């Protein structure tokens, strides 16, 4: 878990600082230097692509975009999911039944295809990607928060608070919310890799971010086109993508185990 956090922070720092100190520009085309292989001693650490652009800077840019989309999308799903789940769980009864029936209905839909449909219908834009990915992932969050709220609401300390006269807003802020934070943090951590997957999938299909902007998925797509002659174009962004996903998954797993252990379940 600690290793995952360390790696993620390192990647993040390089992605933020790297392009800024590098002499190369992510969009600068240079036909005199196309498809140069990576060399740590040379000008282009990760080599160049088919348009002669520096892959190091482009990869770091791709990481930035991928992480940005994933984090923003996760926050969108966090806000929607937590609000929806907490309301359903705390109000309970018929409202809960109807709200959860709706979630179940949406659950059965292949959302990713709807996102593609959206991308086709509307011009592709960044904002839409955030919203669409957020809209996919809030369902899990809503279910989990609802379940947790429901069981917290039944816990006797909530009754005890009612009996000493604590009003509903304070019951929620003092007795329910603090007990939700742990599980929410766990699931946000697990939502981020999900969002990364969706974003890079869309970019891979050419439905995500547009040139000269890029993301890890778009870089992999480009890499596939040149993999027979210039395998680094595929392998470098692909392994970084896998590394980032793995770190988030490890982190999420670790946090979940920690959380479960503390709750004795």
């Amino acid at each position, binding site marked *: 878990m600690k290793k995952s956090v360390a790696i993620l922070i390192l990647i993040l720092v390089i992605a933020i600082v790297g392009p800024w100190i590098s002499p190369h520009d992510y969009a600068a085309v240079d036909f005199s230097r196309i498809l140069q292989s990576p060399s740590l001693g040379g000008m282009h650490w990760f080599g160049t692509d088919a348009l002669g652009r520096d892959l190091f800077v482009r990869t770091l840019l791709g990481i930035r975009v991928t992480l940005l989309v994933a984090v923003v999308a996760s926050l969108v799903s966090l806000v929607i999911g937590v609000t929806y789940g907490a309301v359903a769980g705390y109000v309970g009864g018929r409202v809960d039944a109807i709200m959860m029936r709706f979630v179940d*209905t949406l*659950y*059965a*839909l*292949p*959302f*990713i*295809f*709807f996102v*593609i*449909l*959206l*991308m*086709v*219908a*509307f011009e592709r834009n960044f904002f839409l990607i955030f919203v669409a990915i957020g809209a996919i992932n809030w369902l899990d969050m809503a279910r989990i928060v609802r379940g947790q709220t429901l069981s917290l609401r039944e816990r006797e300390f909530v009754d005890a608070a009612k009996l000493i006269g604590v009003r509903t807003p304070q019951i929620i802020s003092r007795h329910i919310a603090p007990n939700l934070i742990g599980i929410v943090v766990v699931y946000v951590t697990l939502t981020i*890799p999900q969002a990364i*997957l969706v974003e*890079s*999938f869309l970019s*891979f*299909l*050419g*439905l995500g971010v547009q040139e000269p902007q890029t993301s890890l*998925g778009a870089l*992999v*797509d480009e*890499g*596939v086109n040149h*993999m*027979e002659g210039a*395998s680094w174009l*595929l*392998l470098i962004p*692909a392994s970084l*993508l*896998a590394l980032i*996903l*793995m770190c988030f*998954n*490890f982190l999420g*797993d670790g946090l979940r185990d920690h959380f479960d252990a503390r709750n004795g379940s």
Partner: protein
Amino acid sequence: MLRYTLLRLLGAIPTLLLVIVLAFLMVHAAPGGPFDSERALPPEVAEDIEKHYRLDEPLPQQLLRYMSGLLQGDLGPSYRYRDYTVSELIASGFPLSLQIGALAMGLALIVGVGAGTLAAQRKNTLVDRIVMGFAMTGISIPVFVVAPVLVLLVAVKLHWLPAGWSGSPGFAKYVLPVITLALPQIAYIARLTRASMIDVLSRDYIRTAYAQGLGTKAIIRVHALKPAMLPVLSYMGPAVAAVLTGSVVIEEVFGIPGLGQFFVRGALNRDYTLVLGIVIFYATLIVLLNLIVDILYGVIDPRVRQR
């Protein structure tokens, strides 16, 4: 049980309706039409086309027309493949996608459940760690990374298996796509099985079975497998959605002329009716599958049936 099944069946209908209406509105609420992306058409031509595809009618009427067509299996004409209807395109692409998808799901279930059970039995041993390490890698590396890398290694560099589809001999060409498509599902199912098997094996009724002198093998077969499979069963809906998503990538990378490829082409060409038709088709497939899963759940868990 009959009551339960009927209730589930009834429950699937609103979901299907929602799918259709949602998808239809998404497409038709979009600005611009299918034909104004490339170059401006003369107004009379545009009008002709609009009439031909009935885009001049009010939206609710179009929706009703579309839905009544749907009931007869008619998803309308494709905008790009002018001579084909969407239904024909689906009919030509789906069988191949289904073959590969079903093979991948079967493989994923067998290997995933087996590996997960093994890891659960050998919890915290080397075997467990190896299986779980593979599973973690499997869920972390997306299909669109695994597919090209495998092609690069196994086909291009080592020449063990064919890289492409057309022209390759029968059996061999299935191997890479099916394995690639199955890998992330194997990983998910193994993780799920391990977690739920460990949970089930810690139950009091398993201790009872041990106290009754049943051996580990008999306990897993008689007492543990059924309840441990419930989370895996619940995962079947999302799994099929994931396989469908994956098939889009696989067909793209391996050049397989399946439904996924039509879908991507349709999406890139903004072929509204085709994309809409395929989304509705996929969604229906998943809703039906979830229905089957729900019913099976009732078969396995006697307590669910009574609700």
